[in-house]
């Protein structure tokens, strides 16, 4: 599917390159960070160092330090691990549920299919952030909870998309052929439909990852997600907000990282969608 025509699309190339870069930084975080993200030295001497400054021990701080004298660059690349991992895992859950619900509803079109799609439309109409806040506030905050909650509230648009595609595929000759050869519906769904459904699902997933990352950071910003002192972009923005006047870089750096990540996902998703629709404009 990611054939050469797609790679000729500048949006796809830019998006892939950005995401690969971010993933590389996240994977190699301990190597490229240059400092322990939680290390605090002499707080009074090392706090609020401006970007590109050298600490009293001669240590170079690319993005400066926060109010505890922790290196912002180190926290940023370690935070990337949290953000990307949460985004990918949550989207994997959402894609899993959406794929199953959409395919089953598309193959078993009777009451089962109608019931599933009605449930999907219902869930789609709920304000997601209200559910997120409820779930995240009522249970003790943890990274696992955030992944689960984001996954469980993000599958509906994927289910809708998959359902539409599945209904279309059911009328295609290769499915009719399989049916006339006596394939059961379960086999039809998972041997014949799902492999053809990967392409539209990839688009939804690319857009979903960006959305999940923003929401994860939002929950951490509110203190309902990843707990301090673990580095997370949302938590960094929250703590940087309190020190905006003397150290704006603490809040600015993770926000820019978030924007870059979501832009990369959106560009990739847009390029994929145009490519699949057959009219790259």
């Amino acid at each position: 599917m990611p054939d050469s025509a797609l790679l000729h699309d500048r949006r796809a190339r830019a998006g892939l390159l950005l995401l690969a870069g971010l993933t590389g930084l996240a994977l190699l975080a301990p190597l490229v960070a240059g400092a322990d993200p939680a290390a605090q030295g002499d707080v009074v001497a090392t706090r609020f160092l401006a970007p590109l400054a050298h600490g009293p021990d001669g240590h170079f701080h690319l993005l400066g330090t926060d109010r505890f004298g922790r290196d912002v660059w180190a926290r940023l690349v370690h935070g990337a691990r949290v953000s990307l991992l949460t985004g990918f895992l949550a989207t994997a859950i959402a894609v899993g549920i959406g794929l199953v619900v959409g395919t089953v509803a598309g193959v078993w079109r009777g009451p089962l299919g109608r019931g599933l799609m009605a449930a999907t439309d219902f869930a789609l109409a709920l304000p997601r952030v209200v559910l997120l806040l409820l779930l995240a506030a009522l249970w003790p905050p943890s990274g696992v909870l955030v992944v689960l909650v984001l996954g469980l509230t993000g599958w509906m648009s994927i289910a809708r998309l998959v359902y539409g595609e599945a209904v279309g595929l059911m009328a295609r000759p290769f499915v009719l052929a399989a049916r006339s050869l006596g394939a059961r519906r379960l086999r039809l769904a998972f041997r014949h439909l799902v492999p053809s459904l990967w392409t539209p699902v990839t688009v939804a997933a690319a857009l979903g990852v960006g959305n999940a990352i923003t929401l994860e950071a939002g929950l951490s910003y509110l203190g309902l997600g990843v707990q301090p002192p673990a580095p997370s972009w949302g938590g960094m923005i929250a703590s940087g907000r309190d020190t905006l006047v003397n150290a704006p870089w603490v809040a600015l750096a993770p926000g820019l990282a978030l924007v870059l990540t979501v832009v990369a996902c959106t560009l990739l998703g847009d390029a994929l969608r145009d490519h699949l629709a057959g009219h790259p404009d």
Partner: protein
Amino acid sequence: MLLRLLGRVAAAAAVVLGVVLLTFLLLHLAPGDPAVHLAGPGASAAQLAAVRHTLGLDQPLPLQVLAWLGRAATGDWGTSLATGRPVATMLGEAWPWTAALVLLSLGLSYLFGIGLALLQAQGSARRDTILSVVSVALFAVPAYWLAVVLVWVFSWRLGWLPAFGGAGVDADFLPAGARAVDLLRHLALPLVTLTLIGVGGAARFVRGSLFDARREPFLVAARARGLSGRRLLLRHLLRNALGPVVTLLGLSLPALFSGTVFVEGVFAWPGVGRVLLLGVQARDYPVVMAAALVSAVLVVLGTLLADVLRAWLDPRVRHA
């Protein structure tokens, strides 16, 4: 048409009822006992039982839901555990603030978004690419971060606008004119935050819709009749492209509301989102219950309105 509308109203009511049931279920399943919260850790078993009885927590869950719905219907939404104020009063004060913020930013977002998309549709491919990148970037900015950045620039660096609240501390003592100015100054930053993000999404929707409509036969026909320029763009292209946009507008309301919750949190804007946030953080169950309900009603009403608007604008939808 009327039947369709009735169907939509019934679906909207089902969603609101679903939110109530889901919230109840979640509150019930969540770890921690509100009775222990209220009575304190030193309470005896008898005291706990008494608290449970007064809160109605000793009843089976379906009865609790029915009782809550019955009371909610008569306007009794309980008392906030954190502030001791009636929940109905708190939300009654809060919802106009949220509705004003959401409607104003929605209107401005689509005004600027349509303008941006029109610029993209009639200019060079280069201009289209640059503006596409701009709208993707705006669309990607998290609301709470943009809010923090704007506070840094306009409240701290420039000192032009207040950083939080819906009115200054002296607002009650100002003459009407000065009071309006004070309100507008407080509105500026939350509105700009939501609008900037909204413009990104709106421009993306409208551009997609314009480019789709460009491939339609009626546009080819209009061109063949010799039409071009502004008349073609506004009368033929834009009017036809706006139909799907109205539907998307309705579908984007939940997302806009999500942004509003964060923005209200950052700017301490006294709306429903802030009530919900504070309630969630204080585990103030009656407030959370009611705020979830009111936000669901606001979102569902907006979606319904978009549906009706779409049918009114487009005879093909009305008679489908």
